[in-house]
């Protein structure tokens, strides 16, 4: 059984996986051969959802969250650092990780944009601004990501 199939099965079965698994999924997204197939959008969404849920819960301030690429990237790296995922178990910084995450940002942001489109407007008077700046209400995001996880 391929790694990706095992992973999908474990996620679908709701098995308790370590916190670093979500970070590793976002790291190995490009390794189709070794994984035994492409990483499905659903899996990316679950992994990203777990990480962002952690980030949003961690930062309790503000009613609105802007899910811009920089925020998402920083959240992923901070999550890995806080959970001592490789290579942050032995180093404080890793330009290589940042480069890999940057390379995967296109796929990651596609998921984020889909969430933003599904979200209710953060400001009913100005819905286009919310879409443009990828802004969503923090409470909605928490609820949505909890459901996703």
């Amino acid at each position, binding site marked *: 059984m391929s790694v990706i199939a095992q992973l999908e099965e474990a996620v679908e079965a709701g098995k*308790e996986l370590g916190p670093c698994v979500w970070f590793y999924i976002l790291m190995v997204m490009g390794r189709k051969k070794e994984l035994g197939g492409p990483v499905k959008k659903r899996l990316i969404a679950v992994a990203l959802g777990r990480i962002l849920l952690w980030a949003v819960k961690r930062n309790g301030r503000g009613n609105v969250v802007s899910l811009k690429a920089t925020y998402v990237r920083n959240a992923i790296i901070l999550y890995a650092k806080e959970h001592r995922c490789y290579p942050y178990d032995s180093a404080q910084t890793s330009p*290589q990780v940042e480069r890999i995450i940057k390379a995967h940002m296109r796929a990651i942001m596609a998921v984020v944009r889909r969430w933003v489109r599904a979200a209710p407007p953060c400001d009913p008077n100005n819905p286009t601004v919310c879409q443009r700046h990828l802004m969503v209400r923090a409470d909605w995001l928490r609820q949505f990501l909890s459901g996703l996880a």
Partner: protein
Amino acid sequence: MPIEVKLEQVQKLLEQMGIRNVEPAAATAAQVKKMCTETEKRRATENYVRKMEEVMGFAGASPYVVFAFQTQQGVICIPDANFVVGANGIYYVHKIDCRGDSLRCAQVADKVVDLLGIRSLISSTTFLAIHPSEQELCELGILPPTACRKPPTEKEEKTEEEEEEKEEEEEEKKTSVTQEEPLESVALRKLTEELMRAQRPAVEEQKSKDPKAALKELGLGWLADLGEADIAALRSAAEDKTLLNALKDAEKRSAVRKFIESGFAAPQPAAPPNFAKWPQKDVELFTKLAEGTRSLHELVVRYLEAEFGCDVSIIYDIMQDLIKQAGGCEQLQKMRRRFAT
């Protein structure tokens, strides 16, 4: 100073230095320029030459007396052709053959420089062109102290060697880092490990559960109500293997076998080596902390929290900062020793 007086002084100087039969030959600026080797090209700008002539004219130092030292590499002139040639007038060139005794020539050149009052203009490059041994020139005081590099003492030599060794080690480390497998591959391996780990506790949890409940989960709930006599009968059945072979699922089969063999006792978790020798207090703390942990890291985190009573992530950060500030673990140990004394 009239040129005649200066030429007399030059003759005296040469005699003092043991150099005879050197007659000044008149030459034009173009001839001098052609004859002399330029030792410092950066000075050969028109503006610089003009300014230098003005300064030398004002200070009394004259460029009209030129010493041409014949060396193996060519003719080196003092004053240097770079800034002297260009002036209008006749140059009185004193040709001195340095081939075979370049050190004496360097000493003459030094005196000449003093005589003409142009020391600041003569660079160490000119002297080195006449006698190419920096150390000797430094020892004789011909080269200015600023141009001299002190020969390394034994200690310095050792430290230099150590530094070189360190640099080599660092380079080796760098190359070993570049030779390491890519980060994504490591992440993939870690991901697989995590997956394996996620599958393992499920089995362990099943084992540690109440044996009757575990049997029920396996779909063998009817076994839970059996008495001692029945269990003995089952043991013999297990030996016979007919009953067990009837179970198609290998995992369930082995679980039932173990369950029967242990006499319905829940398996004991594996303890660390020499656990029996531990103090009772430590055993209790370990058991308490290890409960529900999924990794050694988590266990260490819990232990440090219990030991220091604060958020362990801070301790990790502090430790990392300390090591980084100290410049490595070895340096940190040295610092610790220094503080202790």
